[in-house]
């Protein structure tokens, strides 16, 4: 697992892709993190006055996804392709981006899960290309 070096250019590019594809579609917050729990990009919540503790969220999400992978292996699967939690007012979706990255999307009931899944799948390859080469 190599260290990640983020340049202003890669961050800007990733940020604008995430904003165009997810935030403009109604997503409240999108976080791009690595599997060690570091935040690579954090989009959306500033515009919407949401106070999200991104560091804790990233650490827990990385751990949760790693635990989910282990659960998958216990039942003979390689990994689960979808990790999604539904709340009363908010929902959270975790999508894998390349080998080492995770895209976390937080959205309300006004956005459909199907749209999120499509957009995250579309974004995954481009984002992986930007950070993992």
């Amino acid at each position, binding site marked *: *697992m*190599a*260290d*990640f*070096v*983020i*340049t*202003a250019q890669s*961050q*800007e590019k990733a940020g604008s892709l995430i904003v165009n594809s997810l935030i403009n579609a109604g997503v409240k917050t999108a976080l791009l993190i*690595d*599997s*060690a*729990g*570091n*935040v*690579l990009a954090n989009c959306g919540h500033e515009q919407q006055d949401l106070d999200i*503790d991104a*560091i*804790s969220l990233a*650490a*827990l999400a*990385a*751990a949760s996804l*790693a*635990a989910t992978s*282990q659960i998958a292996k216990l039942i003979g699967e390689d990994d689960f392709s979808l990790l999604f939690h539904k709340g009363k007012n908010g929902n959270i979706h975790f999508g894998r981006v390349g080998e080492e990255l995770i895209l976390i999307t937080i959205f309300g009931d006004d956005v459909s899960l199907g749209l999120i899944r499509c957009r995250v799948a579309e974004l995954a390859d481009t984002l992986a290309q930007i950070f993992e080469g």
Partner: protein
Amino acid sequence: MALIDLSKKEVHCKVVYYGPGRCGKTTNLLYIHKAMDDKDRGKMLTIDTKGDRTLFFDLLPLNLGKISGFDIRIQLYTVPGQVMYEATRSLVLKGCDGLVYVADPLKVRQERNIEGLEDLRRNLEKNHLDLSKMPIVLQYNKRDLCDTPVPTLSIEELEQDLNSQLNTSYFEATATTGVGVFETLSEITKKTVRYVAEKHLLTNVD
């Protein structure tokens, strides 16, 4: 796995406190959290597991000032120490840049300390990391017990058991009162930042 953000001029490193169950890993983090200014620390994250044992991990993010113009941000993690949670320890070690091995001085825990270090070596290998190349500091905790009738290990015994191959710095500590806690943190931080900086030649980055 360190994260180097050239746009914000930040370096993020992950330091993991490792050691057998009940050796005082979480106590170290709690003391640091209590003693540091609000501006230098983030929220301490502890996953509530109904009891005083860590089931998954604790996390404490710290801001440690600037080196060569880069803000140094360290995330301190603990692991669950109990033998049965090996899979969880391996997950938490993913991408770690520095290690503190906390040892228990009780004579009855001598084997556990040695097994814990072996477990660390094994779990690092699972994450493609090599203990002999990682920044690591040993902390001999609970030294206050040496003044009680409870049979404890001497520093020489602990050094023989744990540090004969590592040859790294060690600190005597009593994490409940803070003795040795910041000395340990300061040393592992220096080692970790140096390790990451040398890898990426940060001093040459504009």
